């Protein structure tokens, strides 16, 4: 059951000029969260900015006794609310509603998990990696960013036993170019018979490419779409994506209820506006 918490900012770690990790004391939300779910947040009072904004739960935070204490968000500055989230100080408060949305399905061995992240699309994969680890699923993260400085949290993923395949636009770390380059190679190299599930989050063209690449190799992809969302609860019909299921006609479905995680093969990518 989603809850709304007036959460205290515990810490705000600036990673680069545009990225930060914001830790919130929202234990009641965090303890219910499944990988791929999101929260709707609103920093500051007043009516401008007015609406909440959707954010993946980045980490479920725990104390030394493994008790859940809150959650963190991986935030990228792009506009007014993300600027505010970047500037927050410990002790400030953020309204945080969640957890919301359909989570990833967490696959189990023998199926392996390949997570493909572009930029801030990394956000849902920290909790997914932790859940996969619990199931001992063999996991790889394909992770692309602009440059070496824009690749975060690598040690944490390694500690979770995640194999890393990196790519940067400027070649400063890992493969030079798009994350789909190492992915394509790996898909080609992989044993066709060995079960494998692909997860993708990032820019829409990247998710589309990943879905198509994976499909070409007979793999299904779960994508986490990032539509503009007014409410996060199915109330406003702002967040729709075109989906075609069972060969039927395409329909616009609400990504806050039916998503944000979708089977990539059901998304009608050529009609997806974002």
């Amino acid at each position, binding site marked *: *059951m*989603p809850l*709304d918490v007036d959460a205290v900012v515990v810490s705000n770690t600036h990673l680069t000029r545009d990225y930060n990790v914001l830790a919130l004391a929202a234990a009641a939300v965090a303890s219910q969260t499944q990988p791929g779910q999101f929260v709707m947040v*609103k920093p500051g009072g007043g*009516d*401008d*900015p*007015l*609406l*909440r904004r959707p954010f993946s739960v980045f980490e479920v935070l725990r104390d030394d006794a493994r008790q859940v204490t809150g959650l963190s968000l991986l935030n990228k500055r792009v506009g007014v609310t993300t600027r505010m989230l970047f500037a927050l100080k410990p002790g400030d408060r953020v*309204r945080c*509603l969640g957890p919301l949305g359909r989570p990833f399905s967490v696959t189990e061995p023998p199926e392996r998990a390949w997570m493909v992240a572009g930029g801030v699309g990394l956000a849902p994969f920290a909790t997914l990696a932790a859940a996969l680890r619990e199931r001992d699923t063999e996991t790889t993260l394909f992770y692309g960013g602009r440059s070496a400085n824009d690749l975060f949290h690598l040690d944490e993923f390694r500690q979770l036993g995640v194999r890393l395949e990196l790519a940067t636009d400027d070649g400063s770390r890992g493969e030079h170019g798009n994350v789909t380059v190492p992915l394509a190679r790996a898909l080609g190299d992989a044993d066709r018979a060995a079960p494998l599930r692909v997860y993708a989050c990032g820019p829409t063209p990247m998710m589309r490419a990943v879905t198509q690449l994976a499909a070409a190799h007979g793999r299904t992809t779960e994508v986490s779409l990032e*539509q*503009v969302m*007014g*409410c996060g*609860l*199915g*109330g*406003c*019909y*702002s*967040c*729709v*994506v075109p989906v075609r299921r069972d060969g039927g006609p395409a*329909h*616009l479905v609400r990504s806050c*209820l039916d998503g944000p995680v979708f089977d990539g093969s059901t998304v009608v990518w050529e*009609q997806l*506006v*974002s």
Partner: protein
Amino acid sequence: MNVDLSVDIGGLRLRNPFIAASGCFGYGVEYADLVDLSTLGAVAVKGLFLEEREGHPPTRIVETPSGMLNAIGLQGIGVRRFVAEKLPLLRAQGAVVIVNICGSTIDEYAEVARILDDADGVGAVEVNISCPNIKKGGMMFGCSLQGTHDVVAAVRRVTRRPVVPKLTPNVTDVASFAAAARDAGADAVSLVNTFLAMAIDVETRRPKLSNVVGGLSGPAIRPIAVRMVYECRQAVDLPIIGMGGIMTAGDALEFIIAGATAVQVGTANFVDPFIWNKLLTGLTDYVQRHGLAHVSDLVGTLDTTDRTTAWTSS
């Protein structure tokens, strides 16, 4: 002290004046886990045509200062599926249901109303002649006195439920539309629907909404909406359901004091889906503090007598 928050809208009794606004609360069932629907005055469900509609492609909303634009384009499941799939759930939840009806033609409005008249659990019919986002129907009727009259009269003929035309604010004299609605047999009016508006992405020089224009809602419009409720109250003797940017019990009280018998809450529900309890507590507290027995005693009590010494230059 026990206070009576109940109000009457053209024969429909509500437990309290707070109604979830159409298009801002899905079909109500989406919120049933979060909110006890039986504690709301009523739920106005998303606008329904006769048939299913996909609505406009995204981008469908954009935020503006203290407001938002929407151009959903009335995506919906059509009245028959609503009656079959949603209405029973709403009744089971104990919700009072107001169905917002749409049409591209007067006949379509009447047909939707007729189907609802046969269904159980419809408290009232809100006639949406004010949607700014669709080409045919909607505001086309609501911006013409004749159109308003004709749609309302057609719906009136086919239903026994209270008929509540929803007025558009995009007109010069909203009170004349309230009067036209009354003359056509309306039991109440609701206002305001959204203001026709637009936002432009200056980098691409393209509209931010796929539909180019959309409807402005939220706190930004509240002062205009309150004025329009006040004008209607002066002009016609019908119950008014007021709305536009209500975020707190205090905002709702502005509408009630201006002349609204009940209020709808739309955009605020996006910001805070748990708003209903706060609204109820705030209103109860106010009514008690002011020593009133019934919230309905507040309706239209704005005191405009001049307490300032009129200013003259001598």
